[in-house]
């Protein structure tokens, strides 16, 4: 063959849709920003420190793990930063620095890297970290204790504690608008409900997360809360309260939608979401923890492979 240039010889398809992991993670971070920024304005410098530390540590942990495991560097895909950010958003602003370092290590190393990095994680990494801390050092996550240094024009009682001890009367201390605008105590990036909703809607419209999971999770929380509320309106707060407090919204839009730990087909996604929502309220209303989101989603993560067994009948298969 004569002097031919060297052509690229590879396999079809020769074109790509243009989606990428980087794109996806950076847009998810972008979508989290409204809630984060309002959180920073509320909780000030300590919150800033927690977020910076968490994001920084997560990136460093992933970098180190890749070195140790002799794998190609992956920090530039932004996922480590996203995990760090989401983890920080769940924490109270006053959490001690070592817990942030440790938590980000749990999220990245145990939550992600030992399973082979992104895609292999059976649980949402930030959720796994917060779950382990909730079990091991619960008092650092007790928002009523942690946030006593703050004085705002709204009740600094953690809404879910109030609802637990005083029932729907306790829940009445917050108007829906208060809850939407973030006038409640809670994690750095989990109180500004309106911001989380905005971010979530953005992610859904741009196709970065699945609406099936997010909406069925919220639906699951709302329906279950409504049923409790109807059964005993005095003891149990209503659906709106449950949707707008605690980790419900950040869970629905940012945590339950983690790709690797959630199902991919329609029915499994709906079951996964509703199941998570149901368990959340169950734990909140009659369980040991104030907020059930963490364990509810972790449980559903565990069940996700089982949901995967409900698969559509493929072309040409007779079963």
């Amino acid at each position, binding site marked *: *063959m004569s002097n031919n*240039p060297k052509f690229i010889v590879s396999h079809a398809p020769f074109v790509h849709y243009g989606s990428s992991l980087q794109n996806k993670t950076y847009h998810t971070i972008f979508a989290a920003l409204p809630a984060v920024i309002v959180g920073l304005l509320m909780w000030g410098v300590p919150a800033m420190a927690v977020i910076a530390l968490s994001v920084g540590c997560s990136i460093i942990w992933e970098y180190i793990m890749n070195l140790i495991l002799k794998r190609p560097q992956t920090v530039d895909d932004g996922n480590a930063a996203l995990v760090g950010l989401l983890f920080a958003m769940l924490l109270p602003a006053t959490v001690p620095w070592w817990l942030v370092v440790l938590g980000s290590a749990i999220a990245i190393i145990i939550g992600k890297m030992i399973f082979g990095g992104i895609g292999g994680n059976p649980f949402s990494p930030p959720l796994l970290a917060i779950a382990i801390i909730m079990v091991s050092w619960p008092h650092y996550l007790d928002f009523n204790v942690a946030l006593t240094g703050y004085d705002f024009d709204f009740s600094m009682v953690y809404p879910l504690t109030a609802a637990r001890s005083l029932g729907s009367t306790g829940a009445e201390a917050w108007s829906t608008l208060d809850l939407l605008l973030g006038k409640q105590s809670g994690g750095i990036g989990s109180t500004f409900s309106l911001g989380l909703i905005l971010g979530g809607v953005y992610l859904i419209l741009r196709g970065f997360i699945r609406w099936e999971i997010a909406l069925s999770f919220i639906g699951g929380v709302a329906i279950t809360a409504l049923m409790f509320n109807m059964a005993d309106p005095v003891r149990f707060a209503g659906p709106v309260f449950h949707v707008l407090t605690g980790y419900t919204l950040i869970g629905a839009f940012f945590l339950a939608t983690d790709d690797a730990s959630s199902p991919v087909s329609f029915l499994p996604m709906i079951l996964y979401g509703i199941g998570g929502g149901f368990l959340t309220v169950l734990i909140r209303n009659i369980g040991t923890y104030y907020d059930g989101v963490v364990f509810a989603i972790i449980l559903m993560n565990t069940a996700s492979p089982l949901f995967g067994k409900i698969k559509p009948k493929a*072309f040409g298969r007779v079963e």
Partner: protein
Amino acid sequence: MIKRPFFVFKKPTLVYEDMNQGNYIPVVLPAPDNVTVYVKEKLVGIASEGTKPGDTVMEGDKLTISQESSIYATSPVSGEVKTVSAFPGDFGDDWTAITITPTAAEAEEDVAPEAPAKKEEAAEAEEAAEEAPEEEAPQGPDLAHLVEFLANVPGAPDFSVFQNPEKPVDTLIITGADEDLLCMTRQYVANSEVDNVRAGIKILKQATGIEKAILTLLRDAGQNYESVGAELAGVGMEYPTASPYLVVNDYLGRALLSDKPFEDSGITFMSIEAVAAIGKAITEGKIPTRKIVTVIDKNGKKTLVDVVLGTPISDVFAALRITAGERDRIINGGPMTGTALFSLDMPVTSSIDALMVQDSSNIPVVSDYPCIDCGDCCRVCPSKIQVNMLARVLESGDFELAADEYDLYSCIDCGLCGFVCTTQMPVFQYIKLAKYELARLEAEAADADSADEDAEAVAEENEAKK
């Protein structure tokens, strides 16, 4: 090509090219300085008499490697055989490449293909080509004649499928709709060669005895084809509805797995261009030697060209002022299912419908990132395969498990999973590799079986000797 829109409400929709959206008239290229054709047979010694270097051949002449063999190429021009050399064909087959330099007269004639052939050689060539039809003209040719003369017409008809008594074929699907995006070759032929297609269908049905013919046409382009002797199947605009598997499913109600060729189910496919060529050959008494090719340049601009078979691809590009350089990509076929070529010296063969050039800066990278389980591939897959699971199993190399439990053979080879994959994994490549490997293993197993029998026979013989 389509890119991810800002808002994503549903899965991407890729649509076939609609010729009526533009004014597509093929650019007629003159006969080149030399043409190359392949005989799909290993070169042993020198070629047979009449096909050796220095021999003069006529347009339509058969070129063979050995006198006994039934495998041949058809000379697309009259001229002198320049070289005969071994050529590595697809998948490790050994072929033979024959290069012919057309005589000046031929070249001139081809500039104005309509002009009646006055020159002596050209007239002779025509005579040679007419041989076949002349004998059988009144009844129409039988299958043996088609096999004998028309196996290499544009569109590459495969007549062998009609001759296999073990796998009788009862349905012929003629593809008037292009299977890949951006390609318009078949659509053009369907629009412009109505009479030849009609004649071709008639001839084919007669020669093969097949009752049921189906003609696929993009959307409802069927107004020219009433009572054509084939059922019309309007194919939707949305990729991949023209896929053979989906056509069979939609029009015959049979969802077939891709582990066996269609012929095992009594179905076979033929390009509309081949049907038109057969019709034309018999009615005009001359073997067609020109092919329509859709050329897609680096900017995605599509041009139809009308070229002599065997024209080097470099000549086609030169005529359209397309430059292809270092690290660019040349594709035989369309963007979703084509195959990359490594040399511009390769000729336009009877089966090349489209040629696509991609600039090096435009070639999407394939990453070694793992699957993140986003599920985009599952949602886009027309076969409802859990591609994320399938990809995992294939990565681990367990092809049989993939075939048994993860629906590998439900895949209709559309390439959409690779097109959308978030981490740009080579999902579709894994699938193709797995299918290829499994087919190879199966063939090996079959070989081993017969080898076993041989070994047993030998053992028995030895036993007897003792």
